[in-house]
Each structure stands twice: as structure tokens, then as C-alpha cells.
């Protein structure tokens, strides 16, 4: 099925919106009425047709607009892309993984023809068509990870595995929930998870690391993470804090449903073959609270989760300023009826 790509923006006038189809397939993350960190990792296997889990890399109606937004961010701040020299094998691994997946899963939009080491990549939605030699960076306009990272929705970090841990040694990061690639590049697992409250104490990070060190080829895994963002803005980076941080003061009882967005990250991890590195893919989905209430089940669930949220987590996720307004507004949609376990909308 061919996708209809929307013209919309993730900055300035924020014309981004979700179709009814996009709302229905939204990866709502709360299966229970209470939320706490856990090693919520599961196999990244093929999901229901039409769901965000159908394919390894989900392409949706926002694809073209999101890639355009990524270009703007990278143009304004080239430091959003970084790759340490020893990651070149991982760069080519990443290019192969993403090109192969997109061409296989969305043949009406992408195609890849391989003739030995000579590859031709045709990206119709973005109007890109290039022939290059696999393994030879000089035959592409940019480094391979930079080249294809711009053409896939989401952020990507390449993790090198050594000394019994993982190092974030390359990344293309333009839609992050307030963390900085320039700050984190070269850091180890323990270093970049240091700020997460409560998780380290309960041993979640050690267990997750142990699991990921044994991640296998052809057996990717995934988890969901979430926060809330004022306005549908992809680039909520510390570098550009002045452009979005203040928006958190603008939320009031009248505009909260439109202004505040549930921001869900579908995080998936794939072992790469030649480099033995891991791709950490962070695919961001945004939906206004008003859109969340399209499904009463989701509205009730979201209310209960937020109402019982630990203050440390509210602060860590940057929601302290507007969180009481969110809870108050959502309470109108919650009749207290019991909800079974599960994230389904109806």
C-alpha cells in the first residue's frame, strides 16, 4: 500500500498533525495503570500488518516532512552527526541493514539493486538516486551512516562493544528528548545512563546491559520509552533549548489538549554483522493529548499513569511545569472504570 506523505512542519508554525489512521496505530506505551522503569525489552519481531511493528523500520505519513526537518537541524548544527574513525565497518553495516529493509518492505517507495559491490539506491519520496561502491566512502556524497541516516525516520546511535560494555561511538541525532550527542559521544553504557533516576539502584541498567551484550544477529529487540513535549517538536535538544524550553510555561487549562504531546520512542536494537556493533534506533512518535482522547481507554489509562507518577520521574522527563495541568485536564476523561492490562485503543 502506497503511503500519502503529508506536508507539515515540526517547528515555527507546527502544522504537524496525525490522521485517524496514524492515531490508531500510535504505539501507546502504558499497559497498566502505574508506570515504573523495568527491563521492558522484547523481541523486535514482525507485528500486525499496518502496525508500527510490521517492519523493522517503520515509515509513515510523516516520512518526508520528518526527513526535511532532519536536514534543517543538521544544516544548522552539523555536530548532530558524529562518527569516530573505528566505526566505519558499522557505518556500512547500518547502510546495508536500512537500505535492504526499506527496499524490501516499501517497494513502491524505495529500491536497491546490488551488482557485486556496485549498489544503486533509489529513494522516490525524497527524489534521491545514487550509484556507489559498497565499502568505498569516496563514492558517496557523505559518509555512509550520514548519507542513509538522513533518509530514515528516527535517530540512530551506533554502539561499539568492547571491555564488557557498549560505547556510543557514532550517532545521527536530531529528534532527541533533551539529550546531546555531542555530549554523549564516546561514552560507555554506565556513563550515559548515569542521570536516569531510580533505575540504577534497582539494577535495571546492569541487567539490560548484560542482555544487550548477547544481542544476536537476526534477533533484534525493542522497547518503548516516553515523555511529553510541548508542541509537536522533534528537535527538543539541549543545544536548542532557547527555542523550546520556554514553551513549557505556555501550557494552561484551555490549550493543554492541543499543546502537550505524548512523545513515544520506539527504541529498537540490532546486532550488526561485520562490525559486531549494535544499532540503537530511536523512532519518535508524537500525538497531542486531544488525539489521545480519541480513544477513551487511552485517556483513562494516561490519566491514571500520570496521576501516580513519581516526582523524580516527572522532573527527569522535564514535565514538572505543566504536569498538574495535564493530570487535571485528563481527569475529566476518567470515570474510574476498570481497564484490563494492555495498550490497545479499544
Amino acid at each position: 500500500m502506497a503511503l500519502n506523505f503529508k506536508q507539515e512542519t515540526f517547528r515555527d508554525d507546527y502544522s504537524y498533525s496525525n490522521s485517524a489512521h496514524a492515531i490508531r496505530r500510535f504505539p501507546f506505551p502504558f499497559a497498566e495503570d502505574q508506570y515504573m522503569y523495568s527491563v521492558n525489552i522484547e523481541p523486535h519481531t514482525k507485528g500486525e500488518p499496518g502496525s508500527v511493528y510490521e517492519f523493522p523500520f517503520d515509515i509513515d505519513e510523516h516520512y518526508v516532512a520528518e526527513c526535511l526537518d532532519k536536514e534543517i537541524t543538521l544544516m544548522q548544527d552539523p555536530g548532530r552527526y558524529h562518527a569516530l574513525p573505528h566505526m566505519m565497518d558499522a557505518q556500512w553495516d547500518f547502510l546495508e541493514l536500512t537500505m535492504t529493509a526499506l527496499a524490501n518492505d516499501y517497494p513502491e517507495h524505495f529500491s536497491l539493486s546490488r551488482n557485486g559491490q556496485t549498489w544503486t539506491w533509489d529513494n522516490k519520496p525524497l527524489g534521491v538516486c545514487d550509484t556507489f561502491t559498497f565499502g568505498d566512502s569516496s563514492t558517496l556524497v557523505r559518509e555512509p551512516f550520514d548519507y542513509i541516516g538522513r533518509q530514515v525516520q528516527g535517530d540512530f546511535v551506533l554502539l561499539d562493544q568492547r571491555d564488557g560494555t557498549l560505547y556510543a561511538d557514532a550517532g545521527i541525532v536530531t529528534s532527541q528528548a533533551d539529550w546531546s550527542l555531542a555530549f554523549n559521544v564516546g561514552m560507555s553504557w554506565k556513563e550515559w545512563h548515569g542521570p536516569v533516576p531510580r533505575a540504577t539502584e534497582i539494577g535495571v541498567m546492569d541487567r539490560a546491559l548484560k542482555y544487550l551484550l548477547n544481542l544476536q544477529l537476526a534477533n533484534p529487540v525493542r522497547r518503548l520509552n516516553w515523555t511529553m513535549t510541548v508542541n509537536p517538536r522533534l528537535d527538543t535538544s539541549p543545544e536548542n533549548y532557547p527555542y523550546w524550553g520556554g514553551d513549557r510555561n505556555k501550557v494552561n487549562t484551555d490549550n493543554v489538549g492541543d499543546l502537550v504531546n505524548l512523545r513515544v520512542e520506539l527504541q529498537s536494537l540490532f546486532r550488526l554483522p561485520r562490525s559486531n556493533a549494535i544499532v540503537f534506533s530511536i523512532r519518535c512518535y508524537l500525538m497531542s493529548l486531544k488525539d489521545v482522547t480519541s480513544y477513551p481507554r487511552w485517556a483513562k489509562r494516561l490519566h491514571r499513569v500520570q496521576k501516580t507518577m513519581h516526582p523524580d520521574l516527572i522532573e527527569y522527563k522535564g514535565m514538572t511545569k505543566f504536569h498538574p495541568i495535564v493530570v487535571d485536564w485528563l481527569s475529566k476523561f476518567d470515570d474510574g472504570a476498570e481497564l484490563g492490562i494492555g495498550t490497545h485503543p479499544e
Partner: protein
Amino acid sequence: MNMIDVKVAAIKQVTPLIKHFTFVKEDGSELPSFSGGSHIVVALDADGRTYRNPYSLMGSPTETDAYHISVRRQENSRGGSAFMHENVSVGMTLKITHPVNLFTLAKMAHKHILIAGGIGITPFMSQIEDLKRLGVEYELHYAFRSYAQAAFVDELKKSCGSSLYCYGDSDGERLDMQGLLSWQPLGTHVYVCGPSPMVVSVIETARNLGWPEHSIHNEQFLSPPVGEPFKVQLAKSEIEVEVPAEMSMLEAIEAAGVKAEYLCRGGVCGRCELGVLEHDGGLEHHDHFLTESEKASCRKIMPCVSRSKGKRLLLDL
């Protein structure tokens, strides 16, 4: 676990004890790419049970039309290597896992010293291809009993040239470990694969010379040792499994139809770790994964290689 169906395309007797097997996909398509030092687990059905043995991939990681492994026939083989030698023939189909790498090259090292003993040469066969492709400085030191019994010496001479150093024990040639590791530039990493005494000697020599821990790498897959038979009770599955002397606990659990996690099956990776709820008489830990204090606590066990000292064991599975 996703397994790959392969066909045995060729078998070559390399030395009296070592056979080289070539696997291809049945439909002729490419096998997955891999990194130097990777291994696969080969599943073999024999005598009414399934053996799953890890073997290093030897060929060039960039040539994925076929996989290559070499199997040394083990004295006192529990069946796996003997079966590979006697019963596997060209044209047979086998199941293998995707490649896993527990013996990776350190990508930021300035120089690599590879030390192989006997059949321990196999993981280096793919690593040297990566090192040559990346143009990194390396030396391969290969020790064996005799030139007549040593596998792949001619091949290695061709491919490594002056980076290869051979030591034939029967010719009185000895690798001077102390000398080799005393004068290496900063940023050198050392890798060893071979018989246990050799691995221990390299690790201890390097440590005593002040090498940083993260610059010392070894691969030492264990075959599950033969031991006393015992019974294991699985708390969640609510069944009791007999573990015979010549079978590993993991194999016995699998044979009973209970799905257990695993990866290397050699006591290295930690994936098959199980919680111990009760035991009588202690545990016989053989793995390289758990820390000494974890082993002493008797609360965890790696069923791929470890056993019970008592008659009875209750596991959280």
C-alpha cells in the same frame, strides 16, 4: 532462536585429527556477513539426542557464499566431535545458528598479537582477514605439537607472510611468552585461543608485565564435562529431569522438552544463566562467566557446562 539450514558442500581431512567442513545455503543464497572471531553453533541429531557444539568460523568475513569450520576429533569425545568426524557426509543438511562473536578484535588497538595453540588457530583465521582488510599491524604466533599435525600452516604462510611465527614443539621450537609480551608498544592488544595451560600462561604473563586488563583477550570454549548423574527439578515447569553422566544439564533440560535460553554453550556468554532455588551438596561450576563470589553463593548456575555435586537441584525454570 532463528536457525539457518545449511548443506555440507565439502569435507576435507586436514590432518589425521582435523576435518574442515564447508557449509552452503541449500538454495545457493548468501549466508549472513560476520565479524572476525565469530562462531556458530552446529546442531546435530544423533543417537536420539541433539548435540549443539560451537565452532569458530574460519573463512573471510567478506566471502559469505560459504561458511568454513574445522573440527578436531576430541579424545574422550562425548559424541559431538566424533559424530562430526564419522557421520557427517557431503550433501547432508544441518542446522546452524547465526554467527555470534565473543572474541572480537579491539577496533581501537594500535597493534594485535594473536597467539594460537593447536586447533585454537580457527578463530584467528577469520580475524586475520579483518586485520588485513583494515590494514592494522598484527603478528600471529602459532604453536603446535609437530608440523605434521599442524593445520593450515601453508595457507597461513601465504596469507600472513612475515607476520606469521610458527613453533613446532617436536622440533624444539618454543614460544617465549615473556619475551614476546615484554616489548610491545602501548596500545597493543593480545589474544589467545588454545589449550587451557596456554591461555592461563598468556593471561598471567601479560598481567605480571602490567598489561591493562582490557588489552588481554581469550577464547576458551569448554566442552561440557562428564560428571556424576543427578536429578534436577524445574520449579516453573514443574517437572523433574534426569541428567546422565555424559550429558550436560542444558542438554537434558532441552531433551525433556523445556525451552531454555542459550548462546555459546561453552560457559562463556552468560545467556543460559539459571537461578538456583535449592540444592543439596553444592554446585560444580565450570563456567568462565560467573564471578567467584557468585559461584560461592550457589544462587546461580550456567547449565551448559556446570553440574550439581549433590543428588538434587531445584532451578527457577
